[in-house]
């Protein structure tokens, strides 16, 4: 190095080295903080993502269990809320229980109802950490007044309260306390308090009961009144009315009991019925728990009652066919009145008369 050393070859001055070191230290620290923050955040994100995924899985499992369940209910428990499912399928009857144990949401399965407080109950974790499991049950009729579990605002406005029917029937299985497990359209609301989010799942049993009663009513084309005026046929399912009388035409029920002759203009006379008797009966048949044939009969009755005045004119109400010298039949309304029966009696008679007058009726 025979020539003078130039500045650039002389190295950094002390002040330059100090400044550079300080800047490097500052940058290194900042970089370290960034890496540390990123690392911490990634751990937190991973934890939250894992917890959220577990909550997703739990919610999915609960909904799936309800879909295949015959009953969903909150079993009796002294160690915190729980929700249980009764499932019946080709494999038989089984029970699935979700409950909290050691800050975890766990699931147990057994062929019979389970006690969530039983420490020996084998269960597998579904969500590793939850703060609380709470379960509420709503009847269907209460859903119109349901409130959002977080905001507290009513959320049943879409429902018509009068149109909602609550069903709760015995599932014919006893719970651990001996009470009957019931099934229907109750809603069980399960809330999982956990990080990062509180999750609420509303559950409805997918296999709901329907055991309505259908009454096969041979209703005489709807013209006979099953629960009409006859006490013997109330609560029975009407199947047929077997009346073989044409009430409108047959004189069989109307037998002149007394008659005489009244003079008419020109020296002639006409028959005047002063009284007639009515008698008869009819049969109604009914199906039901106790099939019965009810026969309704009435004894002969004299009408009009003795002592009643008779007008004796051709315009009077007595049913006389003067041409045939016979008594005309009276209609059901008059007959009911004759017998002192209520108007419904006449309606029943009229219905049966109509039925048998119907050419489409084969009876």
């Amino acid at each position, binding site marked *: 190095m025979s020539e003078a050393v*130039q500045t*650039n070859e002389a190295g950094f001055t002390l002040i*330059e080295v100090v*400044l*550079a070191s300080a*800047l*490097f230290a*500052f*940058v290194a620290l*900042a970089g370290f*903080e*960034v890496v540390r*923050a*990123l690392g911490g*955040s990634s751990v937190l*994100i991973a934890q*939250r*993502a894992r917890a*959220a995924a577990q909550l*997703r899985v739990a*919610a999915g499992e609960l909904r799936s269990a309800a879909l295949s369940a015959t009953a969903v209910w909150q079993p009796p428990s002294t160690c915190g809320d729980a929700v249980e499912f009764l499932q019946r399928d080709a494999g038989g009857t089984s029970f699935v229980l979700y409950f909290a144990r050691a800050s975890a949401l766990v699931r147990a399965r057994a062929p019979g109802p389970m006690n969530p407080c039983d420490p020996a109950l084998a269960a597998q974790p579904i969500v590793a950490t939850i703060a609380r499991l709470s379960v509420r049950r709503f009847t*269907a009729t209460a*859903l119109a007044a*349901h409130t*959002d579990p*977080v*905001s507290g605002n*009513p*959320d*049943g*406005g*879409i*429902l*018509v309260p009068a*149109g909602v*029917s609550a*069903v709760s*029937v015995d599932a014919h299985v006893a719970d651990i306390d001996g009470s009957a497990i019931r099934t229907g*359209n109750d*809603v069980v609301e399960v809330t999982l308090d956990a*990080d*990062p*989010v*509180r999750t609420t799942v509303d559950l*409805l049993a997918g296999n*709901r009961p*329907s*055991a*309505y*009663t*259908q*009454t*096969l*009513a041979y*209703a005489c*084309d709807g013209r006979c009144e099953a629960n009409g005026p006859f006490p013997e046929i109330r609560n029975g399912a009407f199947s*047929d009315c077997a009346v073989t009388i044409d009430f409108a035409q047959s004189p069989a029920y109307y037998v002149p009991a007394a008659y005489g002759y009244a003079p008419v203009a020109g020296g002639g006379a006409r028959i005047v019925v002063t009284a007639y008797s009515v008698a008869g009966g009819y049969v109604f048949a009914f199906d039901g728990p106790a099939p019965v044939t009810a026969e309704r009969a009435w004894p002969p009755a004299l009408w009009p009652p003795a002592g009643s005045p008779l007008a004796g004119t051709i315009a009077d109400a007595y049913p006389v066919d003067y041409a045939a010298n016979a008594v005309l039949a009276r209609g059901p309304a008059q007959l009911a009145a004759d017998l002192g029966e209520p108007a419904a009696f006449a309606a029943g008679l009229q219905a049966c008369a109509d039925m048998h007058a119907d050419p*489409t*009726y*084969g009876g």
Partner: protein
Amino acid sequence: MAERGEAGFGLLELVVCVGLLVLGSVLALAALPALVRGSQTGVIRDAATDVARNAIERARAAAAYVPPQAVADPAARAAATAGHAWAFVPAAADVAAVHLERGWCGGSATDVALHVATTYDAPSDTLTVTVAYPPDPCLPGTIATLALAAQLAPPAYAPQTALDAPVADPAVQ
């Protein structure tokens, strides 16, 4: 004599380089909260989905059984069981919420409002629940929506409902 390329960085170059590094670090730190929030947008979306599914489930429960009085008349039975108009009004709205255990914009646990609109279309017998939710609660004005539609199953007769079923008179068969 040494070439310029062999002379190393000058102080100015070093300062500029360090400044750029510092700026990058600061930007990365500033972006962290947004990154964290962005990674959890799905949490609120899932919660909104739960709100919609719960609304549909409650509606299914309420409309599971046709009211016995609506089917007492055999002539009116077909109309009563054709849909669920007896159970639903055409439209309703409410405000639900999701509870987050950690503050998203700093702070502690917080509730995020979800606006729910429910409609029932009688001709198609379809219930639709639409939920408007903020994907990032820290960014006011950003709203996303999701909608779930369910075609309802035919209603069942409630147990012990007594139905008269007129049948042809056996005598004419």
